[in-house]
């Protein structure tokens, strides 16, 4: 079977996949940096374990949302076998579509007065 070609075919994304793509939108990262970035972005609400993290990365690689970067860690500073990942163009389109979908949901919640105007959705 061919992989998805339109972003909406993959929506809605799971929270880990969404936050991983958001973290990767800032630049290439290795697994542990991604884990820390996701925890920081969500104020610690989403703590990914190694198994969950690499399970998601594998699915994202297969779906073409991310790709392995050619970058390698400096052997003097870190393990050189460590892999870095980058978001693909398709991944950027998918995360943008998901962000728009979530923003639309927040707009509706605000209109129903479930969220005060200008507040964070926490």
């Amino acid at each position, binding site marked *: *079977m*061919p*992989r998805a070609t339109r972003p909406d075919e993959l929506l809605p994304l799971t929270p880990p996949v969404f936050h991983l793509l958001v973290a990767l939108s800032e630049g290439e990262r*290795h*697994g*542990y940096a991604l*884990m820390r970035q996701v925890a920081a972005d969500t104020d610690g609400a989403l*703590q990914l*374990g*190694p*198994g*969950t*993290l*690499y*399970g998601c*990365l*594998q*699915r994202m690689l*297969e*779906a073409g949302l991310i790709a392995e970067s050619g970058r390698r860690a400096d052997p*003097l*500073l*870190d*393990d050189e*076998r*460590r*892999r870095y990942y980058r978001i693909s163009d398709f991944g950027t389109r998918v995360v943008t579509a998901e962000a728009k979908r979530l923003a639309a949901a927040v707009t509706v919640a605000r209109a129903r007065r479930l969220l005060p105007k200008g507040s964070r959705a926490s």
Partner: protein
Amino acid sequence: MTRVPTRHPRLSAIACRIYCLTICVYPTEFRRTFGHELVITFRNRVEDVLDGGGILEWLAFAGHIAVDCTRTCWTLSKELRACGSMSLLGLSDDSSIDRRAAGASHLCVAAGVVFSAGVWYMLIVSSPRW
């Protein structure tokens, strides 16, 4: 950026060895592709917890890892059963799955979880820090 060496290298090494045993319950293909990275990431995380946290953080971390291993193993086995490969879009049909091997792997998962919980407990109890 370089990482500061941990203040608990021995404890970190023991935890990594236990984790290496724990990830044996993951499907072979997944372990072959990500095994090394799983261990590096675990080691970084365990060093941060050991250096920066107390007993509660350590216990929370051990619990989190146990849940993560169980959930990952369950999810990967389910995907394997559903599509015969690790792919979201599975390339082989369900008939190629050996049911008895899948049942045995679930038994190994359960034994692994019980074993790792016991070892984690002994590790915490025998740690000189607490």
